[in-house]
């Protein structure tokens, strides 16, 4: 491994821009797909097929007057969206895009930061990202915001446990917490979606809840809570919360692909790893949108019961059974 030390800078620039572009066009895709599923056209005015809509939205959000409630705690109110967006984007630093390439005399690895505990790091970043929601809701000094952030918080804490337990099976099978190694193991053998099917299902359901997406979008149930924790936010501050939410969804899809569907592993061409990876992530993002279009929202008690009484036991049994099987075989 003879990577030049400065390579992290262009790598980080590329990844941040790809992720931001993916975020922008996920919003477009979501509106388009939702529209077609509801017999509408969706955005079709800005550019061909409405392709310039995300850019137009960005300009609109940035130019909006940014006002906030007089009683809000301004320092925290301003910081909260930043925390959410920053932790969401930082997560992509450890997700591997490819097996690495030899360019000239250099070997370039396919990940920005190849740390041995990258999976743990991702969960740590996720648990810090919650603070953006709870602090933002509290600092707005509004009942709806506070209730929304309480809900977010309760939901995220409940489902985080199942999410962490569901990947334990993969970690046991791969014998590593490093995402690069987990993908490398799958390249040699099976994708873990097969042997870890239960883990995959738990991971996906808990992940949808973790990203506040339908049918688990209770924190933003507009009939009860207006808009949840970001009720009092507008302009680009609101935009940053949206950024965080969509990037979390993309990160989760990427993590799902990495852990269960072989990451960059494709039928042909290791050099095209990032393309295979992006294709798989794209399929998961479409699945997220599809679910939003087709499933109604859960009730709060159903959510809590399901999380603690179904998902958690299943995840625990899966982890224990995997451990026993790995030792026995």
């Amino acid at each position, binding site marked *: 491994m003879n990577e030049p030390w400065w390579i992290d800078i262009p790598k980080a620039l590329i990844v941040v821009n790809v992720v931001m572009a993916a975020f922008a066009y996920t919003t477009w895709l979501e509106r388009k797909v939702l529209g077609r599923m509801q017999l509408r056209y969706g955005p079709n005015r800005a550019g061909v097929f409405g392709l310039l809509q995300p850019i137009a939205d960005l300009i609109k959000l940035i130019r909006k007057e940014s006002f906030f409630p007089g009683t809000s705690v301004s320092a925290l109110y301003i910081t909260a969206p930043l925390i959410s967006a920053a932790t969401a984007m930082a997560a992509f630093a450890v997700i591997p895009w490819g097996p690495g390439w030899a360019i000239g005399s250099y070997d370039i690895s396919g990940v920005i930061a190849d740390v041995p505990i990258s999976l743990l790091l991702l969960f740590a970043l996720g*648990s810090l990202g919650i603070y953006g929601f*709870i602090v933002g809701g509290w600092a707005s000094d509004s009942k709806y915001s506070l209730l929304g952030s309480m809900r977010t918080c309760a939901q995220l804490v409940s489902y985080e446990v199942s999410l962490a337990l569901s990947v334990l099976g993969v970690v046991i099978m791969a014998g590593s917490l490093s995402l690069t190694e987990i993908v490398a193991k799958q390249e040699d053998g099976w994708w873990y979606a097969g042997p870890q099917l239960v883990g995959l299902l738990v991971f996906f359901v808990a992940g949808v809840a973790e990203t506040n997406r339908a049918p688990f979008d209770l924190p933003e149930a507009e009939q009860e809570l207006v808009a949840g924790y970001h009720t009092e936010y507008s302009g680009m501050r609101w935009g940053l919360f949206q950024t965080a939410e969509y990037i979390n969804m993309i990160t989760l899809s990427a993590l799902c692909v990495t852990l269960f569907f072989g990451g960059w592993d494709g039928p042909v061409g290791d050099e095209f790893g990032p393309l295979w990876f992006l294709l798989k992530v794209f399929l998961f993002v479409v699945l997220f949108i599809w679910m939003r279009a087709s499933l109604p929202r859960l009730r709060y008690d159903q959510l809590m019961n399901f999380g603690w009484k179904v998902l958690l036991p299943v995840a625990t049994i899966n982890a224990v059974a995997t451990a026993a099987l790995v030792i026995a075989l």
Partner: protein
Amino acid sequence: MADLLVWLIWFLAVFACLGSGVAVISFENPFYSAIALIGNLASLAVLYLLLNAEFVAAAQVLVYAGAVMVMFLFVIAYLGKRADAPWAGGPSIQTLAAAVAAGAILVEVIAVIGLASGDRLSDEASVGAAFGSPAEIGAVFLTDHLLAFEITSIVLLAAAVGGVILGSEPKAPPPEPEAPSGVQGTGEKT
């Protein structure tokens, strides 16, 4: 160059740690105190990172700065803004005694570390590549410290069961036929 960077980060982390520690007990608003405590735990994690203990640092952020502090904020946000002036009324005997006791503990810790390590403190520690890796930590847990590990897990399990018992209400009189709205109380169920 790299040494300078390490020093710089160490300096920042140490002062963030001390500063946020003082902030925890100085803020009037408990919500700010909790946020300062998050800062304190996070800067501790940075110090662990500087000591090559990546796993401990990540676990620190995940468990303490993440899950535990969310619960703190959760409760404080529910209880509302209740100001509690920690320095009101000037120093009492209790405050002075606490300061003296804290100073005594500090001196003790420094003395013990100094005596135990002798002049090894000034040498560079030799750290293997596997030091602090999850595999190493797991091996140590399940061999040298197995008893302590198991006892801790039993204590935690007992605490969790106790929490469930304290949190569960005694058998209520027959439940109402159907709650009119779908939304129920949020506090007890979490």
